[in-house]
């Protein structure tokens, strides 16, 4: 009895250590994305000033896409991937007014998420703040939109095209649908991720293997979407 008590105590201690280590790791990882975002925003502001000094045509431009095309640091935010999305949203919401930086961050968010909200008049935006409002609505509707598309009478190709327009936020919910038996929707995943050449599903069961290997990677994205 004494031995089993020892084992129980040892197991409990190991569990606590494991839990604490993982929690700290997650916190560090999140802080790392947030820190990188903050550093990138500062660098973007500095690069804008430098570009203006070197190119007066940029200085005079009111087109925010001109700044994105000339400021390399924006790509560093895009490279942070979907984990940067909550911080982009937060930065836009917490900034005073809705200036050029908000707009640049909105463009970065669309690049990360692989969406083009301006294409649809219902999700149109023309300032950073307007993007944030439309973005929240888009995320709120994504799970039911995936469901609606999956259950519709559209052809498989049309379903996949429709899912593509929902972008990366739809992936966790497409995964759910595939797990429910809608295997025909799986091609939307590599299409959205731009990984048609690397994610193969030529053999039966390939989708299930990919989902098993990758599903947990999208858990925080799913939580972010469902938080809206």
């Amino acid at each position, binding site marked *: 009895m004494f031995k089993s008590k020892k084992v129980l105590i040892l197991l409990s201690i190991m569990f606590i250590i494991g839990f604490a280590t993982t929690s700290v790791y997650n916190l560090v990882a999140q802080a790392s994305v947030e820190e990188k975002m903050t550093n990138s925003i500062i660098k973007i502001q500095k690069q*804008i000033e430098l570009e*203006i*000094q070197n190119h*007066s*045509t*940029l*200085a*005079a*431009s*009111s*087109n*925010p*896409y001109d700044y994105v*095309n000339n400021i390399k640091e924006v790509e560093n935010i895009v490279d942070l991937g979907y984990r940067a999305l909550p911080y982009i949203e937060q930065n836009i919401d917490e900034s*005073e*007014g*809705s*200036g*050029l*930086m*908000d*707009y640049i961050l909105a463009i970065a968010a669309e690049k990360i998420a692989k969406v083009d909200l*301006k294409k649809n008049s219902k999700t*149109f935006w*023309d*300032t*950073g*703040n307007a993007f944030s409002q439309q973005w929240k609505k888009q995320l709120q509707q994504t799970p039911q939109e995936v469901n609606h598309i999956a259950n519709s009478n559209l052809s498989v190709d049309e379903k996949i095209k429709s899912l593509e327009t929902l972008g990366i936020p739809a992936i966790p919910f497409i995964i759910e649908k595939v797990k429910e038996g809608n295997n025909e929707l799986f091609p939307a995943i590599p299409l959205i991720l731009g990984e048609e050449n690397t994610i193969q599903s030529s053999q039966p069961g390939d989708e299930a293997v990919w989902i098993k290997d990758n599903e947990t990677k999208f858990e925080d994205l799913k939580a972010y979407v469902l938080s809206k």
Partner: protein
Amino acid sequence: MGIKKKIIIGALAVSALFTGSLAAFAGYDSRFYYPKSTYDAIVKTADNYSYLAAATGSYNCLAYVKGYTDIWLWPWGTSNPTLSQMDLYMNQDGYLAYSYSQGSSGTKIIAYGTSTNNITHVAKPADNNYSNAKWGQLERLQSLGWDPYSSSSYGSALRIYK
């Protein structure tokens, strides 16, 4: 004094007045954030700009003409709008488009472009002789004339909206 002489003197006086006023137009001063060359490259005549408000990324030319100084407003995509797209946008806000004519009464907004396929900038009249605009990231400035920009920057005034 003969009438010819009077006409010549009158013409010289008007020219001197115009040149004097242009030379006296405030131009570059210590409040400007960027080098003088940045601003001179944008106008047809060097120094044809006068400081109204500080350089900031808080708002752009389109926001300014619509009455905002706290939003960067851009309803289009990656490319600058065409004149038709600008007309459509302005129509949606109740403005009517007319061919450019300086001093045209009732003008609220002036649109500029290097061509009708590339509208680059908007300004608003301060009065019949001056125009005010936010120059991208740069300052809010006043220029003499409604068509002060060089062809290599904003281009010519192409449209007015009333």
